[in-house]
């Protein structure tokens, strides 16, 4: 039998039992579709996190005071303080490294912000002019903190978008004075709305010069130093450089942790990747169930088509030909079913992206290929037994039974 005849024959068989074929394809389609949708969701979540991170800045390193001997948990969780402060001078020294493009010291705290009768508590970020560039923030109006000596505590502030609307409403804001804690600051700029970034909402913050924040919170120490390396290649060298500079400045004591953004990023990447794989694996169990279904139906079909198989053998079909016939049938079934499932999954992913525009749920190529391949493989593996049974039928007996 030529391959074309083989295919036509198998197709004919499937068409003659539309209900049965449709159900088997449906089973395959459910399995493949769920793998495609779930990996699309996982991929969407991964991309979302990556986007969030790159919007925080590129080639970023973060210097955190304190170091733990046992490395448990993410270093970013370290909230501790240390006997030796991380100071503005440390930040200035780090900036002198060849590998470093920009440095922004950072202080964080909470304080009551009020203007006239309106007031609310807000997160206060103390930093320098460089912060705007490092964190890739944009201004909606006015200007950012003025460059100059970071130790100079100018009484100026830049408002987050939401702070502006809550404190001032529609009133003009540039040049107005407001009160943060027990000090007065003049508003010189407003940040463009950014929304949530890694659970931190920059719209609800107020940025003031780092020295002013240190006075406000009565602390000589910095919370973090944000460092931007010159390029992707210099991130690792910058990390070593910063460690050495600070060690020399801190009398040989290694009491800081330097985290590269890439390290945090790859951790998240790994976790989300593993999660996607696990979820896809669970969904793939359903493909094996679909395979069992195909085997069951084909076994029944072998039993029902005894006389037909007998006839085929009587007119000279070899066992291999018969086997190939059943393989083709199974392969055709799983192929159509899985293509259908892929289409369904793809449509569902589009629907999810349409419903939640922040989540770009696109099924990754590897998942689609794996799902299709696995479906096809399952179909063929589970048709082995029925095909063998059909091929072993004795022509005379099979014909005589009827």
């Amino acid at each position, binding site marked *: 039998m030529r391959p074309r005849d083989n295919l036509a024959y198998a197709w004919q068989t499937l068409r003659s039992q539309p209900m049965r074929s449709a*159900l088997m394809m449906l089973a395959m389609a459910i399995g493949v579709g769920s793998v495609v949708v779930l990996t699309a969701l996982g991929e969407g979540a991964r991309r979302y996190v990556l986007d969030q991170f790159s919007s925080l800045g590129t080639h970023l390193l973060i210097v955190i005071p304190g170091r*733990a001997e046992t490395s448990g948990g993410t270093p970013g969780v370290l*909230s501790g*303080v240390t*006997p030796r402060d991380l100071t503005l001078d440390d930040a200035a020294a780090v900036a002198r490294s060849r590998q470093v493009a920009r440095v922004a010291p950072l202080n964080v705290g909470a304080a009551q912000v009020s203007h006239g009768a309106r007031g609310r508590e807000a997160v206060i970020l103390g930093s320098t002019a460089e912060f705007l560039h490092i964190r890739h923030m944009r201004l909606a109006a006015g200007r950012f903190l003025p460059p100059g000596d970071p130790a100079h505590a100018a009484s100026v502030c830049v408002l987050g978008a939401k702070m502006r609307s809550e404190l001032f409403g529609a009133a003009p804001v540039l040049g107005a004075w407001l009160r943060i804690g027990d000090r007065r600051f003049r508003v010189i700029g407003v940040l463009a709305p950014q929304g949530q970034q890694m659970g931190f909402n920059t719209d609800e913050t107020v940025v003031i010069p780092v020295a002013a924040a240190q006075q406000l919170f009565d602390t000589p120490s910095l919370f973090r130093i944000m460092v931007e390396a010159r390029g992707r290649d210099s991130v690792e060298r910058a990390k070593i450089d910063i460690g050495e500079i600070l060690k020399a400045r801190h009398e040989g004591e290694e009491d800081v942790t330097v985290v590269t953004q890439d390290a945090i990023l790859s951790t998240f990447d790994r976790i989300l990747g593993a999660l996607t794989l696990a979820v896809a694996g669970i969904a793939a169990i359903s493909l094996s169930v679909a395979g069992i279904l195909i085997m069951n139906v084909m076994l029944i079909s072998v039993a029902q088509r005894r006389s037909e198989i007998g006839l085929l053998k009587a007119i000279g079909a070899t066992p291999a030909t018969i086997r190939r016939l059943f393989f083709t049938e199974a392969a055709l079934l799983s192929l159509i079913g899985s293509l259908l499932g892929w289409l369904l999954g793809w449509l569902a992913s589009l629907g999810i992206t349409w419903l939640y525009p922040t989540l770009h749920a696109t099924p990754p190529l590897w998942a689609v290929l794996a799902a299709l391949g696995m479906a096809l493989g399952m179909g063929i593996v589970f048709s082995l037994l029925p095909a063998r049974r059909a091929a072993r039928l004795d022509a005379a007996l099979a014909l005589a039974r009827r």
Partner: protein
Amino acid sequence: MRARDFLPLALGALIDKPMRSFLAALGIAVGVAAVILLTAIGEGLHRFVLAEFTQFGTNIIAIQPGKTQTHGASVGMFGSVRPLSLEDAEALKRVPQVTACVPVVQGNAEVEWSAGQGDSRSRRVTLYAVGPDFPRAFRMAVALGSFLPPDDLNAPRAFAVLGAKVRQELFGELSPLGQRIRVGGQRYRVVGVMAAKGQVLGFDLDDTVYIPAARGLELFNRAGLMEIDVVHDPEARPESVVAGIRRVLSARHGSEDFTITPQQQQLEVMSSVLDVLTFAVGALGGISLLVGGVGILALMTITVTERTAEIGLLNALGAGHGQIMALFLGESAGLAALGGAVGLSIGLALAQLLHLLLPDLPVYLSWTYILAAEGVAFTIGILAGLAPARRAARMDPVEALRSE
């Protein structure tokens, strides 16, 4: 048809064709086993996490400076214009039903011990500057010596208590009691060693040193505490204690510039998140169950076609629509129930095996999910049987008999 006749007729058809019944039931079994195994892991994880958190007691209320929350923690921990003071912590002891009150400053410092002859060992540790009630509040045991004594609030003696790991690293088998160590450059005398506690959610609790809170504020040059932990009477209602704390602190600060988080509340949030997770994982396993249901549907469709003559005969003998329908529904439901039972035993066996192979992976079999999986399997069986059974019931007896 009597029930006694009904069962052999419906189940007899299943036994008559063992291979196909087995395969159809196997589909359901794989689905049920997947659901049971996955939810067992989910539930186990749930219990593990809750146990990790509740080992410090459940009647703890945390107070942090600042009111704005990000990442579930108050930003006021890092800096605040209205810090929480040691006196605040002292005042909270007078709130009704409060049994203990622990001021906390957490930091990171170098600990050093010189054994003499130039042999000096040092280690960077997590430093907790706390009040004397700490072991009682967090149910931690002291292994050697005693915890920090209840000294004067603002001028406590320079005593330190070591975590189990720090003791091991610095002193080895020697007794650390009475030894002088340096913490962040200042001199302290070791008065006790905590019992080993191990890692809690990736955080090593033994790599720590405890010093008095006032000394911690001085060492880190901080204006205020990071947190005050209040333990209340287990009999008391947390709401009334929270109200009492709010009243006292608001009166002291002039406004509500702090965040109160009862641990109960945190536990509830965490518990609901983990519940959703378990449910989602179970639903993923449910996809296989659905495919298994399609398998039963396909089998029943084939069966009805094959047994047209039999149905015609039953019809001719006077079997009603309802009876024929019940017969086929019983067959599909029986298949599903059988598959469910097999799946249950596979799932249980796999869960036990997993528990034996990986003792660290928490596995817990929850009856709710087992019953739910069986229920869903049974329902799927009935639903899958519905369409073929209706087709069988509606057959014209004359036509059906003629097809033979």
